[in-house]
């Protein structure tokens, strides 16, 4: 054991008494079980009543070569006694299971933060693989931080010795040893983890026991280390939350549950067509286990077949759903056009990832907005809604089902890699509190000829502009539909100019007139100097940055848009109450374009495409730039995307920053 006292700032983050929030990052080799460790630590955090947000960050390779820099897998959690909206910017504690994990994650660590490192893995071979010339644990290069370095590997082997495992198997419990230490550090109950281990290794009690022994040993070690080093026990008070039943939830789970709930509210069986793709597959996995809710899952031969089968199921009277990520959504484009043309309900979930092409399969981005809104051949309008957080994905999935069924249209639901994988506490909703929107099927002919003969008009629209849903099997309502332009009423093939004009208009009007709730302000006043307008998973960092800016007296508000297409009716008017509009997004400015186009406002862009979520600091700095020269303005630099920052003063030709009256 080599605990080493190091030079550090006057006060480290962990020494500020009882911190409001702490950010811990577990990093190791992809084989080290860091995601599992993080997941269980999350659970224990939630059970302790802290609010939290997590950010799993793992490599695209399933089994990247051991010890390499690109094989590092990390899990970050931000938890505290106040509202937590992001996974946190810089960690206070970094657990590094090998040299590569240290190297990849060190830059993010706060000065004075704590490094916990396993010296057992800092051997010559691993140091070389991580491209370290000397051992950073020994060469003084970590002086900026607190370092707690000891041989976790050896301690784990020692702890599990009584169970007769070989060294290789014994070392698999290293993550539980580490988790035990972390549980001690934050004064957590071990029992839920013990229960979980017993359940997980039901058939192999000796493995369960070994892991429990490792967990306990790690925990016991905390006491020892406290006496001799920088480690200390911290207690973080539970967050004040609304009373009720809570659980943690990831975005992928929330989408799945929301879809099931949506189908139930529509009183329809659900058909889910999917094809394996990162990071969307988890939805297929969850739904495959919910068959008792009338869910049929179909793993198709490709993305196209997945969406086509879902449309086929919708045609036959179920709620068709498909899901994918950017490249797969591109493949589904033509079929979405058919669903638009045949006006059948369909929900398409896009868990966005970095693109174009294969891009960054395991990293997050919001760059499929254009694809969602504009990305089909022909005039093919389709509603698009976006979830802002893992828990919010539940509500948004229900909303997607509602729009699809009530308006007979495909709907795209945007989430992203961050939302899909991240977890947060969720107040379990009461399904009875949602208003059902039962699907209606046409049972008899819906029109009369001049001579009184009853007639079926498959494209006769209701007050919402939706055509009737007609299940094959219904007596007397046989009819044909397809992708060729159809007559406005009969649905028979009709290429005539006036008819195509009328049908194009009708399809557009139907989507334009979808009733979406009015846009509210997530934080701040309804008028002011600056509106920061976000959509999707940027909610957390924007919210925190706006909160901090407002604390500093800046006139800034946070507006977060769920209904990306069509936009809420009042959005233009709301934003016209602000001098400036800033749109941070993890793409090159796609929503900004939509806002400029639809609302004719001078929205400025703050973009980031590094595959990582925005940090609060970046956003604070960007907000500050709009307040240069005003009291309490913190200002600041945004390094990662400095070149992409808008210049607030470059606004209008007359040099004013005010929006001309009457323009919105």
């Amino acid at each position, binding site marked *: 054991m080599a605990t080493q006292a190091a030079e550090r700032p006057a006060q480290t983050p962990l020494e500020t008494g009882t911190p409001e929030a702490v950010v811990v990052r577990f990093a190791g080799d992809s084989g080290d079980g860091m995601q599992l460790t993080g997941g269980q630590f999350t659970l224990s955090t939630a*059970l302790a009543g802290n609010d939290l947000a997590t950010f799993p960050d793992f490599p695209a390779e399933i089994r990247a070569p051991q010890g390499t820099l690109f094989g590092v897998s990390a899990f970050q959690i931000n938890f505290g006694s106040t509202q937590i909206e992001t996974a946190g910017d810089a960690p206070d504690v970094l657990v590094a299971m090998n040299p590569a994990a240290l190297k990849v994650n060190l830059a993010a660590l706060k000065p004075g933060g704590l490094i916990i490192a396993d010296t057992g893995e800092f051997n010559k071979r691993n140091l070389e693989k991580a491209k370290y010339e000397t051992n950073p644990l020994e060469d003084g290069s970590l002086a900026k931080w607190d370092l707690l370095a000891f041989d976790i590997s050896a301690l784990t082997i020692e702890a599990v010795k009584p169970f007769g495992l070989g060294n290789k198997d014994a070392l698999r419990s290293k993550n539980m040893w580490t988790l035990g230490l972390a549980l001690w550090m934050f004064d957590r109950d071990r029992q839920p983890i013990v229960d979980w281990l017993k359940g997980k290794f039901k058939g192999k009690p000796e493995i369960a026991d070994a892991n429990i022994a490792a967990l306990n040993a790690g925990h016991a070690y905390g006491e020892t280390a406290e006496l001799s080093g920088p480690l200390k026990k911290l207690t973080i008070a539970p967050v004040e939350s609304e*009373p009720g039943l809570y659980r943690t939830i990831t975005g992928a789970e929330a989408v799945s549950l929301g879809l099931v709930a949506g189908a139930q509210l529509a009183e329809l069986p659900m*058909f889910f067509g999917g094809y394996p793709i990162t990071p969307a597959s988890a939805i297929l996995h969850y739904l495959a286990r919910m068959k008792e*809710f009338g869910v049929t899952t179909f793993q198709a*031969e490709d993305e196209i077949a997945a969406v086509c*089968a879902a449309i*086929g199921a919708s045609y*036959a009277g179920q709620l068709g759903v498909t899901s994918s990520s950017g490249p797969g959504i591109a493949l589904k484009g033509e079929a979405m056009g058919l669903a638009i043309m045949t006006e059948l309900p369909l929900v398409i979930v896009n868990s966005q990832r970095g693109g174009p092409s294969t891009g960054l399969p395991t990293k997050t981005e919001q760059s499929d907005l254009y694809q969602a809104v504009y990305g089909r051949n022909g005039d093919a309008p389709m509603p698009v809604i976006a979830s802002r957080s893992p828990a919010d994905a539940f509500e948004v999935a229900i909303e997607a089902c509602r729009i699809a069924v009530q308006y007979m249209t495909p709907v795209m639901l945007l989430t992203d890699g961050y939302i899909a994988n991240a977890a947060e506490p969720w107040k379990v909703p009461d399904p009875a509190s949602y208003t059902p929107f039962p699907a209606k099927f046409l049972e008899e002919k819906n029109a009369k000829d001049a001579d009184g003969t009853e007639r079926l008009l498959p494209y006769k629209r209701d007050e919402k502009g939706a055509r009737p849903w007609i299940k094959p099997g219904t007596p007397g309502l*046989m009819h044909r539909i397809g992708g060729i332009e159809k007559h406005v009423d009969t649905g028979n093939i009709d290429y005539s100019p006036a008819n195509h004009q009328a049908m194009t208009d009708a399809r557009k009007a139907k989507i334009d007139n979808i009733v979406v709730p009015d846009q509210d302000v997530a934080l701040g006043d309804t008028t002011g100097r600056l509106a920061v307008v976000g959509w999707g998973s940027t909610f957390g960092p924007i919210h925190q940055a706006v909160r901090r800016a407002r604390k500093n007296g800046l006139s800034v508000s946070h507006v977060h848009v769920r209904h990306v297409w069509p936009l809420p009716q009042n959005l233009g008017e709301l934003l016209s109450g602000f001098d400036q509009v800033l749109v941070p997004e993890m793409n090159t400015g796609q929503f900004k374009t939509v806002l400029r186009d639809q609302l004719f406002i001078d929205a400025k862009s703050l973009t980031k495409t590094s595959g990582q979520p925005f940090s609060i600091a970046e956003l604070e700095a960007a907000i500050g730039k709009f307040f240069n020269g005003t009291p309490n303005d913190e200002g600041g630099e945004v390094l990662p995307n400095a070149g992409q920052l808008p210049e607030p003063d470059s606004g209008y030709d007359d040099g004013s920053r005010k929006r001309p009256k009457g323009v919105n």
Partner: protein
Amino acid sequence: MNDMTPIQTTLKDWESDQEVRWCPGCGDYAILKAVQRTLPQIGADPKNTVFVSGIGCSSRFPYYMETYGFHTIHGRAPAFATGIKLANPDLDVWMVTGDGDGLSIGGNHLMHLLRRNVNLQVMLFNNEIYGLTKGQYSPTSRIGTTTPSTPMGSVDRPANPCAFALGSGARFVARGFDVSKNLPDVLIAAHRHQGAAFIEIFQNCIVYNKDVFNDFAAPKGAEDRQLWLTDGEPMLYAGGTKGIKLDLDTLSLQVVDVVDGDWQSAGVIVHNVKNRAIAHMLVELPFGPFPMALGVLYDDPRPTFESAVIEQNAKASEGREANLAKLLAKGQTWTVAPSAADPV
């Protein structure tokens, strides 16, 4: 295919009010009539019948049937049909595709439909050409086919639809041609089969690929080059003067002469629709030295995809309550109690 109460209908009941828009003289007309003639015979119910198609001349078929119809997108009809059958297995689904739609752009989907064994009928109209796009060569065009896209003749080897189907795992493979009087019998057999029934129908595109099947499918005079297969019957053709024998030395089929109807001594084999090995030989028989093998080449049902899915869905739901509130609250939960300050 589905055990449903037979419905009394006539050919007229199956004609939609839409004007048929194929080229005059197109083989599609004959197939349409054959289907409309077949459906009353099998007691099919228009309201339960769905025609699903992709894109191409053949895929216009659903518009002309007074049934439910879904004209989908190029090549993807198998996927739509799969979704329809999984959502409502009681529907009687006929899929209509062509050589381009089914074997080129949609080859992948067709393969998976057949291997999964979705309970429906697939009619692949093979005219060895792209008609709707004005006459380019197709994946079944013979080498040397001269078209606007192959002015010097095509050079790639054609696909064999029945061999493709059998190789994909189809449990029913049959062949017919547009003007054949036997086509309804083939369709009836396909409909009776539980599972994916694949029927290749040679179809004359009189505009872009006229009469390419005349050697065996001419309305008259080509009968001697047709080997109509019937389960349990000897493989005889040319008015019983020729037959097919299995040569045991080379394990291949051979043409033999049959004298005075004595096919036994000529070694002619009896067709067994369940013999998959012979089926592989039949689909590959080179036309010319051999007659064209027609009728039901192979028919050996296996449990269908949708029955397996339904069974699994039922099993998964057994003893499990579909309680959404419980589902939402699954896993480890914790309760935040109202604090003293909160109003009770």
